[in-house]
C-alpha cells in the first residue's frame, strides 16, 4: 500500500471505524538491526573507544561492529533525516540508530568501511558553516545536551531551549569532540519546572524559571477553568477563591507563597506566568543517574537566576563553562562532577568555580533542614570570613 495523495487519505469521516487499525504498537526492533547486530545479539564480549565518537564492540563470535556517534540538534527536519538516510544507505546497508541523548549512531562491520564513513561525516556542513554530523560524545567528555521544546513548540516555557542548547554546545564543542574530562559530564536543559527533559539528575542542568506569580484573567477564568482544580493544583496553597467586582467567580493569589512551579497554569489557562523580565535560567550541578561508585543523586541549585539574553545567553554559557573548567582542572580521574563537589565540599565548589553564593541557595522549601549543615566540619573560604566579619567576630 503506497502513501495516499488524497486530501483525507483513506480516512472516511463518514465511517471513522471503517478499516481502522488500532493498538498495534511500535514497529518491532528486530526488523531494524543490521545483520552484525542480529548475529551477535546477547553475545557481545567487550568494547573499546578507538577515538572520540568511535567505538568498536567485539563479540564472542569474533565479529566486530564499529559505531560512529554524531551530535545533532534534537529538532530536525525531513531534509536532514533524508541526508541521514543517504549516509546510512551509502555506508551502513541502510541502518541507523538514535541514542537516548539524541545522538545519531552509524554502524559498520569493518574498519575499512569505518574510514570512509568518518570522512564523509566530517565533510558535511550546513551552508552557514555548522557541522551537520560532528563526531564525538563518548567517554570522558560531554555528549549531546538533551532538552525540551522551548519557544519552538511549548506553551509554558520560561526560556527557549534550542537556542540555549545551540549556544552552550558551540562553546563546549571541544569537550564533545574530545575526551579530556575526569569523567563524563551530562549537560541537560529544560525550559520550565515541569521538566519534560527530567534534568534534575544531570551533572549540569539549565532550567527555565518564572519569577512572577500568575496573572489572573478574571474575565475568562470561570468560563475556561474548573476553579477548584486550579486551587488544588497549587502545592503551596497560594490560591484561594475570590469574587470579581460584578460578583463572578475567580481566584486570588498570595504572591509571597508562590514558588513559580506553573502547575496552576497547566491546569488553568487563565493563570499565565510568563514575563520578559521575570523569566530566566536557573543552573543546577552535581547530579547523576548512574550507580557507578556513588549512588545516583539530584543536581543542586548553584546559580538561582540568570537573565534570558536571547539568542545566545552569554551569562548561561559563561556559567556552564566556569563550572566545567573548574571541574576539569581539579577533579580526580573517574570522579563525576557531584562527587568532586562533595569531596572538596560545596563551599570549595563555590570558591573554585567563582560562583556567588546568595540567600536563594539556602533552601527554604520543604525538607530544607536536610540540606543545612549541623556540624563544625567545614572549610574556610572568603564567604566564611565575610560572615565572621558581619557577626563582629573578626576585624
Amino acid at each position, binding site marked *: 500500500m503506497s502513501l495516499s495523495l488524497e486530501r483525507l487519505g483513506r480516512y472516511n469521516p463518514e465511517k471513522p471505524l471503517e478499516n481502522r487499525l488500532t493498538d498495534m504498537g*511500535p514497529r518491532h526492533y528486530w526488523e531494524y538491526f543490521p545483520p552484525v547486530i542480529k548475529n551477535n545479539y546477547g553475545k557481545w564480549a567487550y568494547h573499546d573507544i578507538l577515538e572520540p565518537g568511535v567505538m568498536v564492540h567485539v563479540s564472542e563470535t569474533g565479529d566486530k561492529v564499529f559505531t560512529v556517534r554524531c551530535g545533532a540538534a534534537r529538532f530536525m527536519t525531513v531534509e536532514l*533525516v533524508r541526508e541521514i538516510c543517504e549516509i546510512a544507505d551509502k555506508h551502513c546497508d541502510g541502518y541507523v540508530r538514535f541514542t537516548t541523548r539524541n545522538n545519531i549512531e552509524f554502524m559498520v562491520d569493518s574498519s575499512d568501511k569505518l574510514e570512509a564513513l568518518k570522512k564523509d561525516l566530517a565533510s558535511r556542513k550546513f551552508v552557514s558553516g555548522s557541522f551537520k554530523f560532528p563526531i564525538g560524545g563518548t567517554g570522558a567528555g560531554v555528549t549531546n545536551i538533551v532538552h525540551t521544546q522551548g519557544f519552538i513548540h511549548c*506553551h509554558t516555557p520560561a526560556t527557549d531551549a534550542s537556542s540555549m542548547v545551540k549556544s552552550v554546545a558551540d562553546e563546549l564543542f571541544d569537550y564533545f569532540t574530545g575526551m579530556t574530562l575526569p569523567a563524563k559530564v551530562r549537560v541537560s536543559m529544560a525550559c520550565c519546572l515541569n521538566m519534560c527533559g527530567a534534568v534534575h*539528575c544531570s551533572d549540569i542542568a539549565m532550567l527555565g524559571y518564572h519569577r512572577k506569580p500568575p496573572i489572573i484573567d478574571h474575565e475568562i477564568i470561570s468560563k475556561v477553568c474548573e476553579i477548584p482544580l486550579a486551587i488544588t493544583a497549587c502545592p503551596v496553597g497560594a490560591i484561594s477563591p475570590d469574587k470579581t467586582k460584578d460578583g463572578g467567580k475567580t481566584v486570588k493569589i498570595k504572591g509571597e507563597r508562590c514558588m513559580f512551579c506553573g502547575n496552576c497554569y497547566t491546569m488553568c489557562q487563565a493563570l499565565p506566568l510568563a514575563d520578559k523580565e521575570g523569566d530566566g535560567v536557573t543552573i543546577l550541578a552535581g547530579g547523576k543517574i548512574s550507580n557507578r561508585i556513588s549512588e545516583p543523586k539530584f543536581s543542586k541549585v548553584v546559580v538561582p537566576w540568570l537573565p534570558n539574553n536571547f*539568542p545566545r545567553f552569554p551569562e548561561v554559557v559563561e556559567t556552564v563553562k566556569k563550572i566545567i573548567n573548574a571541574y576539569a582542572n581539579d577533579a580526580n580521574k573517574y570522579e563525576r562532577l557531584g562527587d568532586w563537589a562533595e569531596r572538596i565540599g560545596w563551599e570549595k565548589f563555590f570558591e573554585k568555580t567563582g560562583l556567588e553564593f546568595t540567600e536563594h541557595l539556602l533552601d527554604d522549601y520543604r525538607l530544607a533542614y536536610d540540606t543545612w549543615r549541623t556540624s563544625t566540619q567545614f572549610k574556610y573560604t572568603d564567604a566564611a570570613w565575610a560572615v565572621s566579619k558581619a557577626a563582629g567576630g573578626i576585624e
Partner: protein
Amino acid sequence: MTFEPKEPKKEIKYDQVRIYTDAELNNYTEEELKNFKIKYDIPDVEELEKGPWPSFVADAKQAALHRRKLADDRMLIDRDVIEDMLGQLQVSFNDGETHWKHGGIVGVFGYGGGVIGRYSDLPEKFPSIAHFHTIRLNQPASKCYNTDFLRTLCDLWEYRGSGLLNLHGSTGDIILLGTTTEQLEPIFFEATHVLDQDIGGSGSNLRTPSCCIGKARCEWACIDTQEMCYEMTNYYQDELHRPAFPYKFKFKFDGCPMGCVASIARSDMSFIGTWRDDIRIDQEAVKAYIAGDLTPNAGAHGGKEWGKFDIQKEVIERCPTGCMEMVDGELKIDNANCTRCMHCIAVMPRALRPGTDTGVSILLGAKAPILDGAQMATLAVPFMKAEPPYDNIKELIEKIWELWMEEGRNRERLGELIQRMTLPKFMETIGLPPMPQMVKAPRSNPYILWKEEDVPGGWKRSIEDYRARHKR
C-alpha cells in the same frame, strides 16, 4: 537467537510507497540555499546559524526552501509553515515570551493520548501555524531504523505535516511537530496502514516505554531490555492510549546499573538489569591491564594523559564497598559484599563481566519536580527474574496500578502517593514485606505509627479500670 515479532510485520519498500520523486527531493542547489531568505526578518534566529554545533536554524531553512520549491499540490498543509515557525521564534525572542497558546483538545478517534493540541497566539501574523499540533509516534525499542522506514516517514510528514520533527522526545517517541486538525486522522490512518506503526502516549496514560540499547550492542545488559520494552508496550496498549490513570505513568528499562536510559530518575516504575551470582573474572586480562597491555575504561579517558594505570588506586581503592583486593597476583572479589556499582567492570571491561544469573531490580516513584518536588526511585524489589512473558512482573505492575487508581489523587504521581500513604503502608498494600534494602538507614525519629493490632489487647481500654488503680 532470534526475536522475530509474534505477528508478522509489514516490510516497507520506500520505492513502492513514496510520494516524492528524486527530482522533487533534490529541488534546490547549494547556491540557492546560500542566497535564501525567509519571508521575515529574523536576525536573532539567524545568529544561531553560526558556530560549529549543528544549527537547527540552518536545517529549518533547508526544509523551508525545499518546501517553497515544491508544486502547490505536493503538500496538504500550508507551504509557509516553517517560515512562520521561524518568524514566530524571532517574535518570541523579541518579547521574551512564548507565542504558543495553552490548551486545545485534539486527538484521533478512540484514543485519549498521542496527539497534543497546539495553536499560535499570533494567527493573523503567522496564519500557517495557527493550528500546529504534535503527534507522538511510538519509537521502535532502542531507536534503530532502516532508511525505508525513515524515508517513508519523511514523505508522509512533509506531505501532511510541517516536515519538522524531534528525533526523539525525552520520553522516547518520534515527535512530529506541526499539522492541522484536519490531517490528524489521515496521518494516523497512513501511519497504521502503511508504516505499520502506532502512536505513543500523552495525558494521564502509560507513557511510551523506553529502553537502553541492551543486548543489541552492549556486553553489560543483564536483561533483554528491548524484548521486555516491546512486550510491555504491546501488552498494555489500552493503558497507553486511553486515559484511566490519575496522571502519567512511565516504565523504563535499563540493562544494567549504569542506567543509560535514566530509569532511576525518570520512571514511575524503573526496571534495572542486575545479577545475583559472582562477577566473572579473567585473571589473565587483569594482568594485562596491570601490565599496560590493555587500555583501562575502554579508552574513555584517551584525550588526556592520566599516567600509568594503577589498579590499586583506580579500582580497588575506589570500590565503594572495599570488597576487592589483590592476593598473590590475582584479583579477589568478595561478591557477598559487592553492591554491583560496576565501576571495576567499567574500568576493566575485558577482565570483568557481570554474573550470569540475571534479573531486574525494581524501583518505584521517580519523577521530575512537578508537583511535589523531584523524586528519585525507591528500591522495592531487590531481584526478580525477568523472562518472557514476564507474568511475575505484570502481576506486580497491576497490583500497583490498582492501588494507584484507587487511592491516587488527580495529577498525583506514584512517588507522591507513596510519600502520602507512607512507604510501609504502600509496601504492605502491594504485598511486599519490609527489608533494610528499602532504606538508606533506619528512621532516626521514633514517632512510629503503631497499629492497634500491633499491641496486645488493642486500644480499647476503660477509664474505670484505670481509675481503679489511679486516684483522680
